[in-house]
Structure formats: C-alpha cells, structure tokens
C-alpha cells in the first residue's frame, strides 16, 4: 500500500493542470454532497415539534420537514451528475497512464488502489472540511443533538470519500482488465451500459408503486415506513425522469446527427452533426441532468403560479391557517433549491464541454493548422451542445408544462384554472443558460488550437 500511495502522489504531482482541475472540482462536488447529506442526516431523526432557528419555521413541523428532506435529496441528483462529470476530466489521459502502469507490471489490484487513491483523497478533503464546519454550526444551533444525528453524520462523512473512490475504480474497469487499455478513444456508441439499464428498470418500480396508489391506498400513510417511503419514492421518480432524459437525449442526438449530417451545407453544422451521430451518448449524461432540471423548474413555475393565486384567494376569504409568509417562504425556498440545482447542472455542462475540448485538443490544433478557421471550430462546438438540447429541452418543457397545467386543473377550489404561461419562459431561459455555459469553454478552444499542441505527435 505504501508503494501505491507513493506512486499516486508522484502521478498527481507530475500531472498537468487538468489533473488539478479534476481534484479541485471533485473536492467541491464532495463538499456539496457531504453538506446536503449531513443536513438530511440531522433532519431525519427529528420527531415532533422543534424550534429551529433557521428555515423560517419550515423545519419546525414534521410535515414540512419531510418536504425539505425530499428537496434536499433531489438536490443530490445534480450533485452526483456534477461529480460524474468531474470524474471524466482527463479520463482518456488517465486511462492511458494506468494502462502504462499495467504494461510496466502493476497488478490489477495495484492499479485499482492507485486509481482509488487518486480520487479518494480529494473527496475526503471535501467531506472533512464540510463535516468540521457542519459540526461547529450544528453545536451552535442545537445544544444536545440526537445521537442518531451524530451517527448519520459520521456515516455521510465516511461514505462520500469511499463512494468517490469506488466510482473511480469502477470507471477504470476496462483499463484494469487489459494492459493495452482502451487504445481507441472511449466511444460508447452502443449507449449506456447494462448497469444503467438495470438501474432504469429498478427506478421504474416506484413509478409502478405510485401508479398503484389508487388501488392500494396512499403509501405515504404507513407511519414510519411511509415516512421513509415518501421522500424515497419522489427521489426515485426524479431519478427515473433523469434516466429517461438520458435515453431521450442520446437517441435524439443520434437521430438529429444523422438527419443533419445528410443535409448540412455549412462546415460547422456538418462537423457538429457527424460528431453527434458518431458519439450520441457523449453528452447525454449532462443533458439528462439539464432536462431533469427543466422538467422540475418548468413544472414548479406553473405550480407556483397556481399555488400563489390560490393562496391569495384563500387569504382574501380568510381561510388561511398560518401567516401568508409561512407558505410563500416555503415556495421561495423550493425556488432557491431549484436555482442551486440549475447552477450545479450548468457548471457540469461547462466542465463537460471543456473536457470534450481538452480531450480533442491535438486534433483541433491540427485542424486549425490545416486552415479550418477558429470560428468554424467554435460554432461546431456550440452546435454540438445546441442541437440535441433544442430537441430535448422542448420535450422537457412540454412535460413541465403538463405538470403545471395538471396542477392548475386540480386546484379549482378557489380560483378559475389558469394556464401558467410564465412557465413557458423557463425552458427558453434554461436553454440560453446552457448555451452560455457551453460558451465558457470557448477561451479554452483558443488555447487548444495553439500550434504548440502539434508538437506532441
């Protein structure tokens, strides 16, 4: 183990700036994951009424606390997506390096440990920092926290780095298997792996469960089981939507690529379309997360509009049990959570675009040397993001709209159902933000096409 540790250290120290980006971003992802995980762990063991100084009273009652827990669990989804994106930074380079280690005689187990040591410490750093600050904060807010909260926090603090290391080992299974590594560029043209298919299937189960609700009764009313089941079901449903979005993004990319490649007249469009057709799954993970956020946020804006109108009507009729701000605070908090999710997703998208550029930088430098103008390469890069997203965001927007309209049609108690048109702006805004995020990679393109890149043949 000492030898592996020393090698991992040497490799990290001798690696380029990209490797440091990966370490820093992974640590940031670990900070977010640990932070959210810790809050959930503190909230879950709480029973009955508490006076909590933060959260405008939403954390005081068990019911609203459950809602907050659900929201936090949902926030974990984009965080996971972000972490996955970080793991891909320099993946091709890392694959090659570990394959070289295997050629030099390292055993599969050694390579696995080195890979784990390259990611684990970054996650550990993120999780320790967060844990220390969270504990300090918790002790100020809550004099005698429940023992279960402590246990849960300990589990999260350990689990995040362990999971991070495990995922990085899993991602390198192809390299570990063969000393020749994956000499060709990683190109999963066949689509997501079997694990992903199984996961999608498993996620389908809660969907069936919810669909059965009218027959079996409300699963949310089974006491403790129901309490755990409720948030988990919503969490799983959102994961399902995300997974379906990945499939949708992948298939639509392939289809769009084929259609456009056959008809393209502009070089930038031709390059982008052929790239999409060739590797439609490349960006589907990030795009999946974007779609998930689009569905949720479009739906939310619709629901919010209806909800506020309904609340306003109830208030005028004097039927509100609590102060108006109690409800609006909850809504605004949800909005904030969605915005955070969007920010995480956009960062993931920017990282993904930058990574795809960095991987291809030698080829891009050669293209530029051969006279393909910078503008064409830049447009091709943006189109690669813009084309599949246009299709997918439209579908996601329609989905979100459907949720909003459905909700509006349900709450006819105090108001006339109103189509929440404002929600239509959300997909447009998300699309625009995505293009901006992708555009942040453009300065990197200028650096990538420098002739110095030609020197490493």
């Amino acid at each position, binding site marked *: 183990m000492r030898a592996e540790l020393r090698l991992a250290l040497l490799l990290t120290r001798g690696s380029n700036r990209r490797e440091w980006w990966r370490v820093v971003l992974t640590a940031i992802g670990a900070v977010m994951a640990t932070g959210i995980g810790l809050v959930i762990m503190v909230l879950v063991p709480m029973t009955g009424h508490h006076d909590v100084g933060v959260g405008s009273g939403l954390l005081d009652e068990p019911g609203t606390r459950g809602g907050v827990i659900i929201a936090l669990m949902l926030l974990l989804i984009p965080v996971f997506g972000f972490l996955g994106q970080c793991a891909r930074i320099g993946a091709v380079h890392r694959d090659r390096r570990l394959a070289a280690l295997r050629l030099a005689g390292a055993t599969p187990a050694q390579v696995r440990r080195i890979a784990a040591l390259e990611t684990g410490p970054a996650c550990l750093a993120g999780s320790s920092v967060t844990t220390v600050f969270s504990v300090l904060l918790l002790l100020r807010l809550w004099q005698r926290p429940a023992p279960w909260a402590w246990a849960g926090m300990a589990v999260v603090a350990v689990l995040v780095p362990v999971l991070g290391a495990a995922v990085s080992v899993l991602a390198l299974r192809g390299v570990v298997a063969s000393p020749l590594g994956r000499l*060709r*560029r990683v190109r999963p043209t066949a689509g997501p792996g079997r694990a992903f298919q199984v996961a999608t299937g498993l996620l389908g189960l809660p969907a069936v469960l919810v669909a059965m609700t009218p027959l079996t009764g409300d699963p949310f009313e089974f006491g403790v089981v129901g309490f755990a089941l409720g948030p988990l079901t919503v969490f799983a449903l959102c994961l399902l939507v995300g997974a379906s979005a990945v499939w949708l993004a992948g298939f639509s990319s392939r289809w769009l690529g084929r259609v456009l490649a056959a008809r*393209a*007249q*502009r*070089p930038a469009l*031709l*390059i982008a379309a*052929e*790239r999409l*057709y*060739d*590797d439609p799954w490349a960006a589907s993970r990030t795009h999946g997360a974007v779609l998930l956020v689009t569905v949720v946020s479009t739906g939310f804006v619709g629901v919010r509009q209806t909800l506020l109108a309904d609340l306003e009507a109830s208030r005028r009729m004097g039927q509100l049990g609590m102060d108006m701000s109690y409800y609006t605070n909850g809504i605004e908090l949800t909005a904030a959570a969605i915005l955070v999710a969007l920010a995480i997703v956009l960062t993931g998208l920017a990282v993904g675009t930058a990574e795809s550029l960095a991987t291809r930088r*030698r*080829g891009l430098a*050669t*293209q*530029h*040397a*051969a*006279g*393909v*103008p*910078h503008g*064409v390469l830049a447009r091709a890069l943006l189109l690669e993001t813009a084309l599949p997203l246009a299709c997918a965001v439209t579908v996601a927007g329609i989905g979100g709209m459907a949720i909003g309209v459905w909700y509006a049609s349900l709450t006819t108690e105090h108001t006339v159902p109103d189509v929440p048109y404002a929600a239509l702006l959300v997909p447009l805004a998300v699309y625009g933000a995505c293009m901006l995020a992708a555009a942040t990679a453009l300065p990197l393109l200028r650096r990538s096409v420098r*002739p*110095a890149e*030609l*020197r490493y*043949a």
Partner: protein
Amino acid sequence: MNNGENAVPLLAARDLAKTHGRTQALRGASAELRAGEILAVTGASGSGKSTLLHCLAGIVRPDAGSVTYGGERLDRLPEKRLSGLRRGDFGVVFQFGQLIPELTALDNVALPLMLAGSSRGDAQARAGEWLERFGVRGQAGLRPGEMSGGQAQRTSLARALVTGPKVVFADEPTGALDSLASEQVMTALVHTARDSGTAVLLVTHDAQVAAYADREVRLSDGAVVPTGVTA
C-alpha cells in the same frame, strides 16, 4: 521542375529562431522554396525540421527572422489572413490527425471547399474526383478510423490538394506507413504536384522519401548544414 537560380523564391525563410519552452528548436535557419519545386527538409529527430515547416506554413510565428511568401512578410500577417492563406494557397499533410475522425473521407476532402463557400454537393463532387485521382474512391464513405494508414494518408493528400494550393507542406507524411504504402503515397504526391505545378515542402527523416524531392535541405541543431554539392 528546377526553375534555376534566376527564379524568385515562392517562399523564403531567413535566419529563423524559435524557442519552445527551454528547447531552442531553430537557431538561424534559412531555406527557400521555388515555385513548383519539391524540397526535402531532412535531419535527425529534434533538429527543428517540423518547426521550420510550421514557420514556413504560417502555423507558428518565429521569435526572430523573416518568412516571405509572394513578397509578403508571413510572420507579420494577422492570424485571420494566415488562416485564409492556409485554407487557400497552402495545403498541409501531417503524419496523422488532419482528417476529422467523425467525417467520412468524402466529407473530409470536401471540407476545405465548403469552408471556401462551395455548396456541399459541388464540394462532394470535386472531392470525389480527387479521391479517384489518389485511388481511394472506393473508400469515400469510410471514416478515417476505418481506413488503412495508406488510404488515410492518400485521403489527406486529396484534402491538401483539393483547393489547388501553390504549396503543400508535408510533415512526415509516410511516418506511420510501411514501405509499399509509403511508396504509393509519395508517388501520388509527386505526380499530382508535378502535374499541377504545386511546390512541396517535405519534412522527413527517411532518405528514401527525401529522394522524391528535387533538392534537399539538411538541418542539424536548428540550423541548415551547408552541403558541398548542390543539386
């Protein structure tokens, strides 16, 4: 082929110096290329051959010295003009990598024409003729990864020549090929260059490849080795 001493060189480099990080790739190298001439630049690995080619093709700006093309100082042109020049007047062939992996051979060759504003159909038609000329018409629908090294390099030649350039820059074009494929690629290059009067700057460490040229410039430690005999 040999336009004699009286001809004004098409492309000339004078006293080029270029440093990459801590290594000095060129120290006072000079070379000139006459119209329609095939010039071989040879030398050991690390002698500065590729950097000289990069400077002459306007891909890299030298730290000192001048590069003149058709009476213009290439080393002082703005990047936009240089890109345009590389698209029109120059063609480049490298050891590998100049073909876009996601595009078919046909689209790869059509790309420079599309960049120049041709419609896809016209560009593909002309690209097809060039593939024919290099004997890879049958591979038009394949992507670079699906072709043999020799076929890919002949496709690269077609891409470099499709715009009718005045100069083709070839950096170890046969570096990754076996001797038969190498012979086919070089013969195709020499024949086309002679037919169209295109000048070729050929960087190679292989004497048999250099022998396809009319003349040889030998580099050692970033400078030209004076040869007693001139061709």
